[in-house]
């Protein structure tokens, strides 16, 4: 088997990896903002929920979370009489999104806390409500600060998608393992997919850089 023949199945796997990355990134971004803002809430219930979520998903291993959702959650479902048998794609996206969202939440919280107090006081003097202050004053100024760490998390998330191959989802890492099993040509296969991941990471990072440029368009440029 010539190495070019590996490419069609690998590209198929790469497409699955791209989809997983996009879906879990969207979920993770939503959770980042929800929990990051929630952790600063004066409402103790919202604050508590956010802290517990962040601590659990930052405090345990992603693979443990993935296995728990895929293998253990159905048993919880049996106990309470609901079918919680998740298809691998759902379990994968959930685990990836929940995990990266917990890290992202700390980024959101940190960036919000870095907004100068004077800006918040000015919003108060102009009689903005708490919510208006958050959406109109604090978040727009915090967004540019979030982008560099978000870029790292996005690449982290892309790399983490490889773990879903362990619950037999046909992503890039899974296809590579199949081909290796079949051909024993491990050097070629793994070299190819390492470069494929590398390429995807570069594209993803430049996408986030574009996003950073867009959210900081109001800033002075050196």
């Amino acid at each position, binding site marked *: 088997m010539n190495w070019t023949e590996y490419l069609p199945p690998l590209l198929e796997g790469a497409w699955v990896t791209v989809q997983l990355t996009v879906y879990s990134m969207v979920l993770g971004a939503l959770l980042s903002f929800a929990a990051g803002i929630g952790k600063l809430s004066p409402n103790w219930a919202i604050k508590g929920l956010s802290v517990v979520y962040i601590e659990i998903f930052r405090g345990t291993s992603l693979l*443990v979370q993935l296995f728990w959702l895929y293998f253990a959650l159905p048993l919880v479902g049996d106990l309470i009489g609901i079918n919680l048998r998740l298809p691998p794609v759902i379990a994968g996206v959930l685990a990836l999104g929940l995990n990266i969202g917990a890290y992202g939440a700390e980024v959101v919280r940190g960036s919000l806390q870095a907004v100068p107090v004077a800006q918040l006081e000015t919003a108060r003097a102009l009689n903005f409500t708490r919510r208006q202050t958050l959406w109109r004053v604090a978040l727009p100024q915090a967004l540019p600060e979030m982008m560099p760490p978000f870029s790292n998390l996005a690449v982290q998330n892309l790399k983490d998608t490889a773990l879903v191959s362990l619950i037999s989802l046909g992503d890039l*890492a899974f296809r590579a393992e199949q081909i290796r099993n079949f051909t024993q040509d491990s050097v070629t296969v*793994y070299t190819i997919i390492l470069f494929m991941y590398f390429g995807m990471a570069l594209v993803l990072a430049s996408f986030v850089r574009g996003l950073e440029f867009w959210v900081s368009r109001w800033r002075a440029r050196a």
Partner: protein
Amino acid sequence: MLFGYEWVTGQGDLAFAASILPMLLLGLVVTIQATVAGFFIAVILGLIFAALRQSRFRVVRYVTGFVVEFLRDTPLLVQLFFLYYVLPEFGIVLPAFMTGALALGVQYSAYTSQVYRAGIEAVPPGQREAARALDLTERRTFTHVILPQAIPRIIPALGNYAVSIMKDVPILSVVTVLEVLNVAKIIGDQTFNYLVPFTMVGALYLVLTLIASYLVRLLDRALPKTGLPLR
């Protein structure tokens, strides 16, 4: 049966949990060993990368920069498989644990090399200029002025990566390393009860990372921010 211990089924979850705890703890020991070994390699290899990036030769700097970026942007799982299947083809046959620790070390060396660089760059340029004004040699400036101020920044950052490494150890289960998640998976496969062992692994991890993060914070606070009095 695992590691000479028997699991107790049919007597409720609590009895089952109690019976598998010793096995999970033995798995946890392997997890910690892998963390330490991986961290050790990452600390050394990262230092080498950081030094190469300061090389006088532009080619060396560029190649190192590319390698570090490449290692950082590709999945640990794939790097692990690569080492696991490719090293033997070059006649290097390592135990699974060693391959796993090596993969952890290689992946995280990309991060630690950045920590060294950032730590040294964080020392204010005025310090270097002051040392030059005092006619200190380059070497003495580095060992007596730069390093003592950089180390208190570097060590806590390295500590945080040690915690990250610990959370990545379960990936080594794919090459048959019997760390804690793999032990739980085996128990689950045998007893068809995944809920108890996986939940226990989650709880053990939570405790372990809380302790580790606390230790890193203690360390951070113990280090003098004004610089370490090296002799």
